């Protein structure tokens, strides 16, 4: 019963982590979401520190203290969320307003307390039960938590999602009450649960920051939400208002009016619009955007579009006389919204025209077919969203990598083209990186990039057209004519004349033309000296939105000031700061017990520190590398995170459970498991791509099952070193078990941030190899 309660507490902790992530994202915490989660997770380690410091007092009262911790967990979860909803935090205002920093710190603290309480219960359990068993219930419970929360994201809106961790932890408390029969305290516990439940149920809405797209739209006089769909991809909301109008980079030569539009929002951020279509004439405005340039090259082309969004790209293809249109979309609700819910609004447009919508990731779908198209377009939904400054800088994006471009080029006909549009960032960087990426993809295929790339821009968007064969004179003439009609600027085409650039949308020093020309002429000095990272992304380093160059930080600070750094590449700066802060904070909490305990820690302290620290780092690095790698095949980070984390945790739990039953010495067992981890991980790093490619066409469930199966042996082996180390400490009556737990927890948190920082710079494979090295080093310092 006690261990089952531990199981539910562990599951609620993981469910809480994911819930918190969802709520902060919807609220608009921006770049600080990651740091809030990372700091909250230091609570895992802090639980160990507390138990260590109170060891004397808690001795013999572990079970009662467990109940107390579980109750505190529920109480602080409910109350904390209630209070945090009343302490608004504005992530951008922090640049100017010190008061925001104070609010942020309070929010961090509020989020950390439940994790401290929950982890205290887990650490206490190590004193009561066998380490292998405790670790088993802890990890398998965590795995279940992930699984439950993933299903819940389909059913429960973000403002109510905390009910899940709340319910799971309530089960834990009820089990403990039944088991411990605490008498009078039963009533208190019951009251606390009812109180916390009341708080949660009384929450009506998340306090979304007022300048998020959805919130701004709802300020419009006649605006109202007319549709809401939930999924792990986020909450989709459709807003109806006669005042919503969007057409990024619309040509100044367009003199008509836009059609009525509904606004489409994902977690409160503007995603796209849904056009009201009376006839095809309603959509003529779409011809007046830079995205239409590619259509001037073809008559009745076959078009493949990655990303449906609100259907704008498909509409544009049709209004530009496309013969057939195939669109891929991952979000399960978008096709239904366009084909069914809003079919009257769009006049059945998506049912009656030659538009095929496929629920799949675009790149995966292309890998499964031999069909060739005239045009492949990365829709604005996919490319423009990733243009938002800094927020997605460390998100993996397998749509914009050298390998992805090869797939696109293989799937366009001989004279076909790939077209990608981005919102131009200031200072220029995303379009330059895109061109560098296209250049490398073409070079790797033995194609001369200078002859096969054309770039145009409006006042806010830039479009890159990439061909397999050189642009003909006729084709460049068509692009020039298109730009002339639309008042768009030519940035580059083979044989461009400097007199032709910077005519309608004038920028200082012909910045775009000069930069693009230098990139295409292989001017490595330019890339090296440019203040932003323009290195082409690959599948091993799939970070298109990562522009930060640490070496150039002093230059940027000097030229732009600290306010601008946060505004330009805030995501990475916050991530980096988080890493430093969590490292310092963790160090402090690891050292504190030593300071207070004097010489009370027996055995070799450094050895304990290194062993459990290295295990924490290596486990987390492997987990993150695998999530990122598998997300390429499952085509969604949410699916891959859930599958990998659940599989690894549950199988680690099983591994740890059986570790108590092996008759070999602990050291030998750990040696075998680490050798296995190293070998297995190497195989995954070097050969997993081949396995996964062979099942790419399989249904999602099969791919999920396959990913989970692959992880089970690895996870089982990864579950052995930690409880084995704890067993050794326990056998010698070492008081440092809670301390070991803290160390492991802290280093895991540091590694979760560190892994992203490392992978963005050296790639996923090398990060995985570092993790293997970490395990081997841990073996060398195994406690005796």
């Amino acid at each position, binding site marked *: 019963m006690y261990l089952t309660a531990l199981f539910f507490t562990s599951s609620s902790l993981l469910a809480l982590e994911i819930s918190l992530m969802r709520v902060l994202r919807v609220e608009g915490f921006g770049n600080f979401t990651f740091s809030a989660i990372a700091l909250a997770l230091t609570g895992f380690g802090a639980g160990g520190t507390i138990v260590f410091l109170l060891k004397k007092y808690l001795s013999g009262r572990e079970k009662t203290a467990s109940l107390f911790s579980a109750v505190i967990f529920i109480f602080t979860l409910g109350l904390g969320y209630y209070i945090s909803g009343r302490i608004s935090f*504005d992530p951008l205002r922090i640049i100017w307003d010190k008061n925001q920093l104070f609010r942020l710190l309070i929010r961090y603290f509020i989020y950390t307390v439940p994790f401290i309480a929950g982890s205290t219960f887990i650490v206490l359990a190590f004193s009561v039960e066998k380490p292998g068993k405790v670790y088993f219930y802890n990890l398998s419970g965590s795995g279940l938590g992930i699984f439950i929360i993933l299903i819940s994201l389909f059913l429960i809106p973000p403002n109510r999602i905390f009910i899940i961790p709340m319910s799971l932890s309530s089960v834990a408390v009820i089990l403990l009450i039944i088991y411990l029969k605490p008498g009078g305290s039963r009533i208190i516990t019951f009251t606390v649960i009812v109180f916390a439940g009341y708080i949660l149920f009384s929450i009506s809405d998340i306090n979304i*920051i007022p300048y998020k797209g959805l919130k701004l739209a709802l300020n419009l*006089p006649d605006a109202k939400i007319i549709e809401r769909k939930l999924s792990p991809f986020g909450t989709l909301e459709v807003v109806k208002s006669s*005042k919503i*109008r969007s057409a990024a980079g619309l040509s*100044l030569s367009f003199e008509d009016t836009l059609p009525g539009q509904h606004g489409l929002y994902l977690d409160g951020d503007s995603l796209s619009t849904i056009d009201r279509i009376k006839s095809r004439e309603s959509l003529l405005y779409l011809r007046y955007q830079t995205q239409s340039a590619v259509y001037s090259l073809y008559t009745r082309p076959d078009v493949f579009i990655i990303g449906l969004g609100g259907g704008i790209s498909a509409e544009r293809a049709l209004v530009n006389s496309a013969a057939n249109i195939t669109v891929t979309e991952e979000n399960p609700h978008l096709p239904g919204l366009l084909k069914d819910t809003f079919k009257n609004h769009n006049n059945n447009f998506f049912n009656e025209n030659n538009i095929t919508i496929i629920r799949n990731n675009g790149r995966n779908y292309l890998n499964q077919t031999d069909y060739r198209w005239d045009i492949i377009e990365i829709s604005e939904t996919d490319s423009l969203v990733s243009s938002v400054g800094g927020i997605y800088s460390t998100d993996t994006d397998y749509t914009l990598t050298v390998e992805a471009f090869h797939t696109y080029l293989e799937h366009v006909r001989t004279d076909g083209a790939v077209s990608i549009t981005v919102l131009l960032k200031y200072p220029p960087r995303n379009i330059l990186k895109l061109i560098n990426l296209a250049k490398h993809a073409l070079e790797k295929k033995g194609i001369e990039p200078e002859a096969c790339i054309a770039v145009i821009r409006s*006042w806010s968007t830039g479009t890159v057209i990439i061909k397999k064969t050189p642009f003909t004179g006729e084709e460049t003439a068509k692009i020039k004519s298109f730009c002339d009609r639309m008042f768009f600027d030519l940035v580059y085409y083979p044989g461009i004349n400097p007199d032709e650039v910077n005519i309608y949308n*004038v920028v200082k020093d012909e910045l775009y033309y000069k930069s693009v020309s230098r990139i295409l002429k292989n001017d490595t000095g330019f890339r090296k000296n440019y203040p932003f990272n323009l290195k082409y992304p690959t599948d091993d380093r799939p970070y298109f939105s990562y522009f930060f160059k640490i070496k150039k930080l002093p230059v940027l600070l000097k030229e732009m000031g600290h306010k601008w750094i946060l*505004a330009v590449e*805030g995501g990475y700066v916050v991530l980096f700061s988080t890493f430093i802060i969590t490292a310092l904070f963790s160090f402090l909490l690891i050292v504190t017990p030593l300071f207070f305990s004097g010489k009370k820690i027996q055995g070799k302290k450094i050895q304990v520190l290194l062993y459990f620290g290295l295990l924490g780092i290596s486990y987390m690095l492997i987990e993150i590398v695998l999530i990122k790698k598998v997300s390429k095949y499952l085509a969604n980070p949410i699916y891959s995170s859930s599958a990998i984390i659940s599989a690894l945790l549950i199988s680690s739990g099983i591994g740890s459970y059986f570790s108590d039953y092996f008759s070999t010495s602990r050291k030998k067992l750990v040696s075998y498991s680490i050798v296995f981890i190293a070998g297995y991980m190497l195989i995954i790093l070097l050969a997993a791509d081949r396995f996964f490619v062979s099942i790419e066409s399989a249904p999602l469930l099969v791919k999920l099952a396959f990913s989970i199966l692959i992880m089970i042996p690895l996870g089982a082996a990864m579950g052995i070193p930690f409880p084995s180390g704890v067993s050794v400490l326990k056998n010698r009556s070492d008081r440092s078990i809670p301390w070991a737990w803290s160390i492991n927890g802290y280093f895991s948190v540091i590694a979760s941030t560190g892994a992203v920082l490392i992978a963005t710079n050296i790639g996923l494979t090398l990060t995985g190899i570092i993790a293997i090295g970490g395990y081997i080093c841990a073996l060398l310092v195994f406690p005796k």
Partner: protein
Amino acid sequence: MGKKKYRIFVLVLFCLLILFQAAGADYRKERKRLVEIHIIREGIEDPLVIESMLTVPREEFVPDSLKKKAYLNQALPVGYGQTISQPYIVALMTELLGVDGDDTVLEIGTGSGYQAAVLAQIVKEVYTIEIIKPLGIKAEKRLKRLGYSNISSKIGDGYFGWEAYAPFDAIIVTAAADHIPPPLIKQLKKGGKMCIPVGQPYFTQVLKLLEKDEQGKIRIYDIIPVIFVPFTRKIQ
């Protein structure tokens, strides 16, 4: 007794008057300091703009709770997710329009009314449109109270401009947009200028200047990047 009461009343009134005067003088002092440090030193040269910035009482356009911050060179919240722009940006946008006493200007996004007031000091007529009703009503009352008789305001959708008074010598758009509304381009006089910030509601935006030449041909110039500084504090 009656006389004594009357004297006390006059004395209190007098003291209050001095206090108000002193506060007014303080604001004037702060305004002057702001204009010298953040407007003139930062490169604004147009004497009409400088004079206007020295005249318009920004403290009247911010919520009472933020009056103390009225002369910081930063944007401040006015409610509904909207802000009163940073003084330097107001001055820059006004200077970019290159307007004088004979001109009529259309402003899209009245907000607090501060930008309209700054323009009204310089030009013949200002027409301003606000889409958010409570903001528009407040601004209209405020501008009337402050005696700006050459400002006409209305609640409505600025996307379509103000056909009845078109064409305009200059148009100023104070809200960031992802495209320039075609009706506004039509309502801009040949030889006229339009100033508009472009970008996403997060992070950097670029201030753009659109010029329509005598032949009706349009050019857009990137001026400077600006940071949209949203404030979420509730307005009392």
